[in-house]
């Protein structure tokens, strides 16, 4: 029964990382940019929740969503759009600088001490089925995660903008020669990434209630590990990678004895290096040759 409990927890955490990973993957798909500042979207939303403490919950979530999307669009417009034709290395350095800038601003404004977000804390309560103790949050994570992933999939499959995003991810030059506006597609990707990041934030908030300047970084780095391991080229493989990394992290954390647990991060980073070297297109993608890294 203990293992079923672990499994349920792992699925819940996997869903959250899948949301973050899909956001990273979509942006990479249409821009060929690994956005190291993705986590700062969650951070920005987290401080918004802190600042709006006392407002009705729905309003707080919507405000956080607005702030996150605004930060995402500013990031794209000011720092990344001018680098559209630059090398991937240059943009990687740029997103690293953006990440650092946002964290420094947060540190100056709110200090390195954590601030409590205080959102949906009731979701931490649990009900029991036999020996299983299931938090409402777990259900929420799985349901919200599933619904949002489904919605984004539908969006990509069914809408014109979704189709244009997939085409751009596959071959930007040809997509544009067919009339696809790069800016529309990129803005679309950043908006969706912002929505997904906010959703993940809202679901992280009850279990990690304290937001610090590094709050988003920790989440995004792990999600990025998942994206690389899963395969960045496709939204589906990036999402699966994110889920896998959240799931594996939770499972191993529960299963490993404490002395070995502390080296879990090293194992995950090591996995990233191995995947980059051996199978750069990712574990969850069919082709092994087409790597654009």
């Amino acid at each position, binding site marked *: 029964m203990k293992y079923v409990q672990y499994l349920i927890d792992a699925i819940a955490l996997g869903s959250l990382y899948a949301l973050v990973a899909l956001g990273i993957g979509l942006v990479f798909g249409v821009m060929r940019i690994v956005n190291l500042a993705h986590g700062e979207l969650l951070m920005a939303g987290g401080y918004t929740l802190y600042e709006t403490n006392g407002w009705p919950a729905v309003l707080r979530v919507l405000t956080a969503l607005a702030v996150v999307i605004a930060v995402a669009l500013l990031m794209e417009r000011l720092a990344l759009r001018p680098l559209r034709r630059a090398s991937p290395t240059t943009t990687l350095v740029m997103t690293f600088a953006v990440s650092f800038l946002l964290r420094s601003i947060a540190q100056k404004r709110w200090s390195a001490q954590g601030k409590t977000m205080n959102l949906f804390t009731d979701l931490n309560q649990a009900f029991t089925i036999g020996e299983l103790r299931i938090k409402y949050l777990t259900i929420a994570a799985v349901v919200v995660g599933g619904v949002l992933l489904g919605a984004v999939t539908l969006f990509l499959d069914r809408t*014109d903008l979704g*189709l244009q995003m997939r*085409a751009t991810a596959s*071959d930007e030059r040809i997509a544009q*020669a*067919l009339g*696809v*506006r*790069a800016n529309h597609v990129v803005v679309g990707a950043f908006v969706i990434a912002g929505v997904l990041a906010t959703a993940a934030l809202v679901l992280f908030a009850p279990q990690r209630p304290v937001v610090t300047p590094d709050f988003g970084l920790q989440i995004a780095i792990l999600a990025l590990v998942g994206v690389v391991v899963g395969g960045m080229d496709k939204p589906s493989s990036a999402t699966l990678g994110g889920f896998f990394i959240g799931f594996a992290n939770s499972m191993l954390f529960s299963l490993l004895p404490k002395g070995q647990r502390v080296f879990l991060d090293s194992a995950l980073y090591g996995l990233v290096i191995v995947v980059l070297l051996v199978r750069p297109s990712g574990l969850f993608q069919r082709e092994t040759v087409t790597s654009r890294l």
Partner: protein
Amino acid sequence: MSVQATRPILEIDCLSVRYGSVPAVRELSLTVAAGEVVAIVGPNGAGKTTVLSAVMRMVAWSAGDVRLDGESLRKRSSDEVARRGIALVPEGRQIFADLTVHENLRLGMVARRSRTGAAEALDAVFEQFPIVKTFLDRPAGLLSGGQQQQLAIARAIVAEPDVLLLDEPSLGLAPTVIDTVFAALAAIRESGRTIVLVEQRAQRAIAFADRTYVLADGVVRDRLVAADATDAERLRAAYFGADTRAVAGAGTPTGGTPKVGTPADDPVRR
């Protein structure tokens, strides 16, 4: 083929393109009239593909200008060029292999200028390329080379462009498939669209086009008309740069049938 009477739709004016320090196209000028079919032929590396990419703004210009209907494309991006009525069938098809045939066609429609008539345009394409309709929901990557080429052309014309640029549409296709492709191009010409055709298979292209430019080392080396397609000496001269007037004046091919006379054979490939 009366050309002089009609207005120029596409004007390339002293265009230069360089890749790093290597010039690919040097001060090239050519004009295409509305409704005309113009071919660009020449040996590998002559700059043919570069000309089309430059018109589409897919490569940067180092000098010169390209005008569509008198309006400069200098400040336009690739997607704007497409939405102003130029469509490209790129070299090597470049269809989206992961997307279905239908999705490829939907992408072609992004550049449509009128909001109405999309369904009719699609029907017209189905009529012209039945194969596209048959495999509508199949991933485009599963199509054969010839089918992919038809899809690539279909994807370009559902946008109902004024000017259709084709880059090596016969590349890597079997002779019978090439016939299908050229039949389709003939139908497109009938519909009144302007066509710029880049081809390695010079003879076929020259015969098909109203006028042909021969490119070498990024400059126009010669101009030909459809009738020249059967004149082996004229072709050889155009390709290898002998004094063309002298050859044209001599008029009499000597020494049996020259090799270039074989259909679908390229003088440059010998």
